[in-house]
């Protein structure tokens, strides 16, 4: 951390120390002030008093008690962090084994699952009170704070929540009350999505560098931050924010600026329709698949504009290549996605996932040979549409400097990467949902349910966690997506880049006919198996499915085996030996 130099940080350690001291004092002081304010609010408004719950108190309670309290606590925590950041770094360093951090993350997500489920179930099932209106705005609402409190007290059915624990914190009612408005719920969900989406590229870039390092027998980022360069992305981010924003003359300035957003916003918007789990979706669109494809498609425009507006030959070439490539690959991509759609009979991603429950042998990728092929076609096409290697022509450094990115720098440049990494996650997630059972567990759900019941944890939080981990839920989804994300990196650092004519040849002359054949064959196959019920075909179908499942299992086992071998013999690898000689390792 000490390597970071911020512009306003004085060169001398003395000044740095004085800045730090004054920051600590101000933060903690301000925090205490807020806490005091919150306390005064508590005293005045008496939100704990069950009998004195009132709708009119909502805003003051939220602002004074909850808002001020949380702000105060945050400020104080910030002050403490500034005071003890070296110690925190040491603590993080202590967690040499990533597993602990990972487990903590998983537990946190499980908790979020639980909270999420609780709140939304509550709002959904709460009894409707009288029709009230918010005084000034005149917006009608049905649930008063008191109703909410009563509902929470009696604990709504269907929520995995220990009945014996009485809710004695009435402010929670104030806190939850706004959630009855769709807009508020949307805003909260959007906050969640934006938070998640911002984590993806930060994590992804770091991970990519690590993967690249490992594959190329080096360590990857090791310096910034303590443990394996965990702060590298943050440091890069800060660096990029403060880098000079260079805009080429002669280009179209407005479009130069706009292009970034056209590249970066659509992948974000894809999360509107991308479900993380059954209820974990911002809008469960009935055309979710198409919507996501559309969002991935619009990105091209931004790239073209970026190239155009840069007023640079390399940029235009890169943009043109990109456009050709992405537009062409959209076709095999879309067509291969039709196969799971055909299997499930819906464009709704939740419905498609629901059709794949009950064990990994029910995943569409194993459903029949055509689906199996379609999965790989999709995956290849999605690589191209994310302009990942081996299809990273648009930014091939050796020919085009950096393609359409050549003239970009600083924050704009980073936003392109932001968009790219988000898109990578989106296509991986789509693959998971359509082919790999989405958020469904590889093992049948009854098994998990039975196990939970036998453990006697059916009604408590342990059960919730077990279900979230092994039955279904966003964690499974994110894990699967992360695996495919990882495979993308793996491919990138393994395969060489191909030429543009080869790219287009591969699409138009190989993938496209193949997809068509697969589409047709799959149609006939399903027709034969499901509709006409041809005996021989059903037999063949069952046989092939087991073969495919076996292939899947063997692949998974092989990968795990290789990983274990590598982990065990990491010291024997050349890379590690090289790494040991690096400074700071």
């Amino acid at each position, binding site marked *: 951390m000490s390597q970071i130099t911020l512009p306003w940080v004085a060169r001398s350690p003395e000044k740095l120390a004085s800045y730090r001291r004054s920051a600590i004092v101000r933060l903690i002081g301000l925090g205490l002030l807020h806490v005091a304010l919150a306390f005064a609010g508590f005293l005045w408004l008496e939100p704990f008093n069950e009998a004195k719950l009132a709708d009119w108190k909502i805003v003051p309670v939220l602002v004074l008690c909850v808002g001020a309290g949380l702000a105060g606590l945050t400020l104080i925590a910030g002050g403490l962090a500034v005071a003890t950041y070296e110690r925190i770094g040491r603590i993080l360093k202590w967690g040499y084994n990533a597993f602990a951090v990972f487990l903590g993350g998983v537990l946190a997500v499980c908790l979020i699952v639980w909270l999420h489920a609780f709140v939304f179930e509550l709002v959904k099932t709460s009894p409707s009170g009288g029709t009230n209106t918010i005084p000034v705005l005149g917006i009608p609402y049905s649930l008063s704070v008191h109703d909410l409190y009563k509902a929470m007290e009696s604990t709504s059915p269907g929520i995995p929540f220990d009945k014996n624990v009485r809710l004695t914190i009435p402010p929670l009612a104030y806190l939850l009350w706004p959630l009855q408005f769709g807009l508020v719920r949307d805003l909260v969900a959007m906050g969640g999505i934006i938070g998640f989406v911002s984590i993806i590229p930060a994590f992804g870039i770091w991970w990519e560098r690590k993967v690249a390092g490992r594959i190329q027998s080096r360590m990857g980022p090791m310096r910034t931050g303590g443990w394996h360069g965990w702060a590298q992305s943050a440091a890069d981010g800060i660096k990029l924010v403060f880098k000079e924003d260079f805009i080429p003359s002669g280009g179209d300035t407005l479009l130069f600026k706009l292009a970034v957003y056209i590249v970066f916003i659509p992948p974000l918007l894809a999360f509107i329709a991308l479900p993380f789990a059954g209820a974990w979706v911002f809008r469960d669109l009935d055309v979710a698949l198409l919507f996501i494809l559309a969002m991935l498609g619009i990105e091209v425009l931004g790239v073209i504009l970026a190239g155009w507006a840069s007023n640079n030959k390399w940029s235009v070439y890169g943009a043109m290549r990109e456009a050709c490539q992405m537009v062409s690959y959209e076709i095999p991509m879309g067509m291969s996605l039709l196969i799971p*759609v*055909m*299997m*499930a*009979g*819906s464009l709704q991603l939740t419905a498609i996932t629901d*059709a794949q429950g009950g064990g990994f042998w*029910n995943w569409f990728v194993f*459903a029949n040979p055509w689906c199996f092929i379609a999965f790989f076609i999709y995956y290849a096409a999605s690589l191209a549409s994310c302009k990942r290697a081996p299809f990273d022509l648009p930014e091939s450094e050796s020919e085009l400097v950096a393609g359409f990115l050549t003239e970009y720098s600083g924050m704009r440049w980073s936003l392109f990467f932001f968009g790219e990494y988000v898109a990578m996650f989106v296509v991986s997630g789509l693959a998971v949902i359509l082919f790999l059972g989405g958020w469904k567990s590889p093992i049948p759900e009854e098994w998990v349910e039975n196990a939970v019941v036998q453990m006697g944890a059916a009604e408590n939080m342990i059960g919730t966690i077990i279900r979230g981990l092994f039955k279904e839920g966003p964690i499974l989804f994110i894990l699967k997506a992360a695996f495919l994300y990882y495979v993308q990196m793996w491919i990138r650092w393994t395969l060489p880049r191909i030429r543009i004519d080869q790219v287009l040849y591969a699409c138009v002359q190989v993938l496209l006919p193949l997809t068509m054949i697969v589409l047709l064959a799959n*149609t006939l196959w*399903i*027709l034969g198996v*499901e*509709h006409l019920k041809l005996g021989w075909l059903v037999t063949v179908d069952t046989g092939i499915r087991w073969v495919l499942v076996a292939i899947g299992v063997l692949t998974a086992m092989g990968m795990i085996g290789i990983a274990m071998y590598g982990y065990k013999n990491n010291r024997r690898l050349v890379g590690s030996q090289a790494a040991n000689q690096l400074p700071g390792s």
Partner: protein
Amino acid sequence: MPTGLLILADMWMPSADDLAAIGPLWGFVGTLVAILVAALAVGRNWRVTGMLAALGAAVTGWMALRTVMSPPTNWAGLSPNNSPMFVADQFSAFFVLLVSVFMLLVIGMWWMGQNAGLPERLSRKGDSVEFFILLIGSAFGMSMMVSTTNLLMIVLAVEMASLPSYAITAFRKQHAKAAEAGLKYVLFGAVTSAIMIYGASLLYGHYHTLDLAEIGRTIRIEGAPTLLMGVSLFAFMVGVAFKVSAVPFHFWCPDVFEGAAIEVTTWLSVASKAAGLGLMLRIISVLTFKIASPETLNTLATAIAVMAALTCTVGNLSAFRQTNMKRLLAFSSIAHAGYMLMAVAIVWMNNGSPTEGVAHPAFSAIVGYISVYLVMNLGAFLVVAMVYWATGSESIDAMNGLMRRSPLLAVMMVVFLFSLVGLPPMGGFMAKLYLLYALWDATWYSLVIVAVFNTLISLYYYARVARAMVFSDDGQPAIRVPMVGQALATVCALVVLYTGTVGAGTLKAFSDDRAKDLYAVVKPGIAVHTAAESARPDSVNENGTLWNGQNSTTVPNNDGWHIGLAARKVDSDRNKNGE
């Protein structure tokens, strides 16, 4: 595993009879596929492609001819609901026949052009695959234009006819004029089709259906369409007016005709207009059938009549200054479209009470006119083409002294030109006479006078061509013309002369026979579905009282084309359950 496909498998499917009913259209699609497959199988062989296309056109024409020659049948369907997508009757079969016969002739012309070896010919021989795909595609679109009453299908058909036409216009890639022609064509086409679609959207808003017959029924019940609906209807017709190059949507026509290769120009000059007129007639006949008070749509009829008069006059007057033969013939074709549009206007007027079994005079006039126009225009273009292939020039000066250089061509050209003027004893006169007769019958004397005086002024520029060929000889060398071309031109000229003299009655009888069927598609009396299960009538339309079936074998109060479709109730019920 509940799969989507299972639901599909249980869905309604068109029956084999349904598919057979639109046979000629399959002819075109089949040819398209055959050419593609042949291109894959034997490579880019222009002879194979040309033969296949000719074969396809012939087969299509034969299928259409079978319908034309069979006793009047009427079929409308290819949809499980009461919204037929295709209509197959004498009317459509006639136009399909027209298009396919013309295509056959144009293929002959193309063949000669390929052999002519001119450097600026249509395309390299290897590109014939693309050329024919586009040509047949536009033919398919044109056939569809006359085979449907559904707004969506009409829009699709117009586009299907237009888009390949744009492409074949710009087909000569090395040719700047062709590119410019294509540009203008596509721009005008796009603008008019957009306006057409906007009009269609408003029509849909008011009538809640895309089926023109249904709209016609509503108009019959509700009476006059409102101003907005009139405007929408007119906006919808704009796209069609573009196809027939009616003023003021004609600006593309001369440029496109000049820029496109001569085979393409020939093709567009007749086929596109024929299809446009067919569509216009179809729309009008379906919308105005048995309207209680014919005056309700008079404003629109007047608009069309004014458009027709303008088209005619502008076309003829603009032709005066032209020095390029193709351009001259383009304006001539605009003028001829104007004559035919006049008859369209009176179809609109004369909707009061179509008599059973008697040909509609206006429609009969159009059929006669367009049949003759096809032959004489092809002939004229053929001669221009042969001169072009021999000299490389399309200007009127290239015709100088043709009487000496190639007497046969010159004589044929004179026949075609004066047939285009409308002089007896050429077929053009008979066609025009029947047209004037129809106009008179509808008591639109002003149109008669406009038509007649246009004939007079058109004489001048046609005579100019004749003058160039016969009077002004600037000593250009004699030209060699292919035997096939001479034969084709002679045949065309003989047909023109035949229809103008001995065969005039035959022409009229032929037109009348075709014209009997104009209202068949909206008349339940003779509407019979070809499907075998059509005997189970169980969907009785509430508006059935509008037409008391004259034919005792059909069920009264039964609304025409729904007879056969209702039999599929089971299917559509299952369909509903499947949702």
